[in-house]
């Protein structure tokens, strides 16, 4: 790892010969103000949003349960000069991120209002529709590089299916998103109608970290610190991988592609080994599984790369990559969050040109049919 970068700053790091247009699988646009949703909301829900507002299983109205290490979890240099929070200004997003990094496609992940976890299900349904429409009107229609995802609250299956169908008819959304912190583990049968529909529509299922499912971030209770809670996101994703595989989701829906977003990828190898190790012992509990768990992972799951792992030795990062498989990895920046990965510098281990192209472009293009 280089410890001092001293050479003159260049506008674009890569030379023309090695220039790569990238697919960024995790960009977070944000509302400039909640009022921006009003044009997509019936009057009743405009009022509700202003008055009762969010109803989430978390102690505070105005902030996350664990205060972040920087204001609203964002990079300090990502606040647009025109005002508004990071990610709220398209022109600034273009200038700071989309243009200099040569983003060919940027896949939107909206966390505002956490629609997946709203306790008032009717309100959640209204908000999810508004957010899905806002993604198109404010973002995808204004910049063709940006692609929207169908966000649905997974705990109200009926409303979720209706919204999926409504959005799918437009042909403008490239995946269906649910939260990994839901009422129940995502492998549970109550969520299967969503997976069935995703498979029918040929849309990947995207699962982005976050959510307020009502469970403690760990099996042993509530942590005291953001340091702990931040890392618990990786644990959540590992648990969901096991739930989906072991309950038999990929077995039942063999054409379904599942993308884990913002979980990183360092934990995946040991998760596969652990599931495989104990498969024989628990085989009789899960006769519906026809294959070893790692086989399901290697055929049905993809993982965005941020936050990238940072071992001290480059060869260890290389090992992590090879264990999960180059084919499984989709580059993501997480712009504009604080633990953002810079496409130029995040991979501190050599990659061949072919490998770089897969991770930064062709894998995602195949999964999302771009």
């Amino acid at each position: 790892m280089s410890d001092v970068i001293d050479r003159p700053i260049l506008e674009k790091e890569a030379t023309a010969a090695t220039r790569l247009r990238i697919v960024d699988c995790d960009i977070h646009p944000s509302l400039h103000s909640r009022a921006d949703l009003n044009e997509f909301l019936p009057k009743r829900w405009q009022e509700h949003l202003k008055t009762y507002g969010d109803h989430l299983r978390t102690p505070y109205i105005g902030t996350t349960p664990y205060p972040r290490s920087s204001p609203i979890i964002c990079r300090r240099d990502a606040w647009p000069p025109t005002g508004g929070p990071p990610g709220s200004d398209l022109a600034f997003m273009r200038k700071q991120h989309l243009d200099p990094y040569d983003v060919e496609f940027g896949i939107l992940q909206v966390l505002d209002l956490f629609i997946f976890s709203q306790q008032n299900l009717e309100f959640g349904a209204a908000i999810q529709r508004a957010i899905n429409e806002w993604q198109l009107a404010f973002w995808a229609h204004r910049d063709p590089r940006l692609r929207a995802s169908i966000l649905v609250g997974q705990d109200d299956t009926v409303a979720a299916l209706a919204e999926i169908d409504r959005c799918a008819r437009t042909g403008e959304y490239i995946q269906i998103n649910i939260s990994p912190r839901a009422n129940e583990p995502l492998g549970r049968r109550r969520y299967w109608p969503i997976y069935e529909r995703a498979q029918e529509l040929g849309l990947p299922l995207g699962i982005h970290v976050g959510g307020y499912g009502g469970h403690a971030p760990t099996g042993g209770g509530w942590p005291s610190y953001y340091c702990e809670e931040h890392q618990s996101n990786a644990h959540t994703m590992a648990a969901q991988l096991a739930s989906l595989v072991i309950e038999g989701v990929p077995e039942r829906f063999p054409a379904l592609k599942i993308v884990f977003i913002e979980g990183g990828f360092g934990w995946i190898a040991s998760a596969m080994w652990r599931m495989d190790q104990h498969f024989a012992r628990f085989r009789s509990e899960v006769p519906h599984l026809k294959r070893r768990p790692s086989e399901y992972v290697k055929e049905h799951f993809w993982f965005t790369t941020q936050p990238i792992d940072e071992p001290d030795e480059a060869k260890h990062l290389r090992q992590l990559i090879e264990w999960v498989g180059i084919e499984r990895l989709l580059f993501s920046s997480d712009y504009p969050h604080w633990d953002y990965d810079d496409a130029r510098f995040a991979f501190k281990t050599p990659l061949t040109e072919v490998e770089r192209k897969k991770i930064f472009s062709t894998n995602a293009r195949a999964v999302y049919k771009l």
Partner: protein
Amino acid sequence: MARHVVARTSEIPPGGNKVVDIEGRDIVVFHVNGAFFALLNRCPHEGAPPDKAACVARLTSPEPGVYNRSRVGEMLRCPWHGWEFDMRDGQSWFDPKRFKVRSYPVVVESGEELVEGMAKGPYVAETFPVVVEDSYVIVET
């Protein structure tokens, strides 16, 4: 070694900074606790710009729940991943030997000294009009 006049001292208020281009490098000059410090405006981790860093106290603790603060405003928390760097010498908190931001010596001189002491150069004055009544921040590369 080249000396570059980069700012009037009055341009950079206490707690503030200015980013200047010196020979193709972005260099950020901070003003804190009566002194000026200059660093390459690029974090060694993934290239973030320290000029947007949070300037905080040096924080240590002998035991849980006790927060000892010193040198308030002289530690930079990188605007992206929060790595802490000492403004004075660019060294990282968590591994000062292996990770640092390049730092540059800074001196403050009066306009009078600059105008009369041209022998101290060579210095790049054309980027900056110098008048004898002001003080100037000079970065040495």
